[in-house]
């Protein structure tokens, strides 16, 4: 078994129109920029994939990563907790123009719904959001005298995540707070594609230190020196590059 994929274009080649795609990251930390840009490049060359539903904590920053996907018109709907950033204009303009849908989910509920999707738990109860607009229309129930909202699992066709070290079997580690949603998304997608800064042979990761066991990962692509979204935005990079 060897889950390595030779290049980024091949890694994202199977993502079709109308797919639901989880994308790791919290702001720029953990954002799989190279995978996202490979997907944008495919869209620019072929017109596909479009009409995507993207699940991420945020809704892009500047003109790279998820913001660039939105800017190109690939995204029909965002599922996120915080569609704001230092430069959220791309999402904001499309949203206010009614050109993109938004499902706003409290951050902990977003994380738990994704975990539930990966763990085979179709629904759970949480105190979060009870009595608020974000719980409207959802079943509520009382347990031990306290009220809770029923939330459903969240699953996706694909997950695009950024990890630090990956082995041939798909075992992964992460780097600091870049871990965030990635280990959850890896469990909740039909196909999980991980870009990793370093590929090692099986045994190259201490069995105690594996954060995402390989069973949750379908493809591993080596991206030795990944871009950091925050750095790109500070340098005013856009994707694709355009003349100023």
């Amino acid at each position, binding site marked *: *078994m060897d889950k390595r994929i030779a290049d980024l274009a091949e890694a994202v080649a199977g993502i079709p129109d109308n797919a639901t795609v989880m994308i790791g990251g919290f702001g720029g930390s953990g954002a799989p920029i190279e995978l996202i840009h490979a997907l944008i490049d495919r869209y620019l060359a072929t017109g596909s994939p479009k009409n995507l539903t993207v699940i991420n904590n945020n809704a892009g920053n500047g003109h790279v990563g998820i913001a660039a996907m939105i800017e190109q018109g690939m995204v029909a709907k965002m599922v996120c907790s915080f569609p704001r950033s230092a430069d959220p204009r791309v999402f904001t303009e499309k949203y206010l123009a009614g050109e993109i849908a938004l499902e706003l989910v409290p951050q902990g509920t977003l994380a738990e719904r994704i975990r539930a999707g990966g763990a085979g738990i179709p629904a759970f109860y949480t105190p979060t959001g009870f009595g608020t607009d974000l719980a409207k229309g959802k079943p509520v129930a009382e347990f031990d005298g306290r009220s809770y909202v029923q939330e459903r699992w969240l699953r996706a066709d694909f997950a695009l995540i950024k990890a630090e070290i990956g082995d041939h079997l798909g075992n992964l580690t992460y780097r600091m707070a870049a871990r965030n949603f990635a280990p959850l998304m890896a469990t909740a997608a039909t196909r999980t594609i991980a870009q990793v800064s370093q590929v090692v042979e099986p045994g190259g990761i201490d069995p105690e230190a594996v954060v995402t*066991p390989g069973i949750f990962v379908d493809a591993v692509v080596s991206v030795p020196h990944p871009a950091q979204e925050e750095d790109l935005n500070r340098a005013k990079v856009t994707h694709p590059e355009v003349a100023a």
Partner: protein
Amino acid sequence: MTTRLSNAQIAWRAAQDIADGAYVNLGIGFPEMVARFQPEGRQAVFHTENGILGFGEAPQPGEEDWDLINAGKKAVTIKPGTAFFHHADSFAMVRGGHLDVAILGAYQVAQNGDLANWSTGPKGVPAVGGAMDLVHGAKRVAVLTDHTTKDGKPKLVQQCTLPLTGVGCVTRIYTSLAVVDVEDGRFVLREKLAAVSLDELQSLTGAPLHIDGSVADLTVPEV
């Protein structure tokens, strides 16, 4: 009585259906033998409920580390690519549909896929372990079993009379006489020992055996 396959031979047959790279959970006891018979060139990744993926064979006697055991509390080993995790993550793998195959023993399997394998009734101390979780989530849930009980009663039945482990969960049954699929609420015979006639096999089976296409000979080497 027709010569039947040994438990090891049933395990050998089940092992032939496991693809290279498949994620597999083997139930405690007899199903554990499946690991021994992986066909040349294929390597399944074995999962154990107590938090190991990709563990290796049993250690040499005297080399056991009792922090490194499988769900049957037998000592195992690590190999390159092993991962450890806690019980909630382990059963996320199980319930979440991440295992390709779970292989379990059975007291009874019904033609609709119901499985009874955890309790023979209200006497004694009940114990269930991970069986009720394993029958949900894995893409294929296979059962290994003698075709009949020791006193000759069918284990493949119309309806289970023993307490259920899971409803409609079994997809394939490897017995000492045949390979039977569960499809649309019926038993479909796929393979049988050449030495056993269809009539004889049906007489040892508690529900109709349907035939859908051809029935292959069940051929298994001495193991």
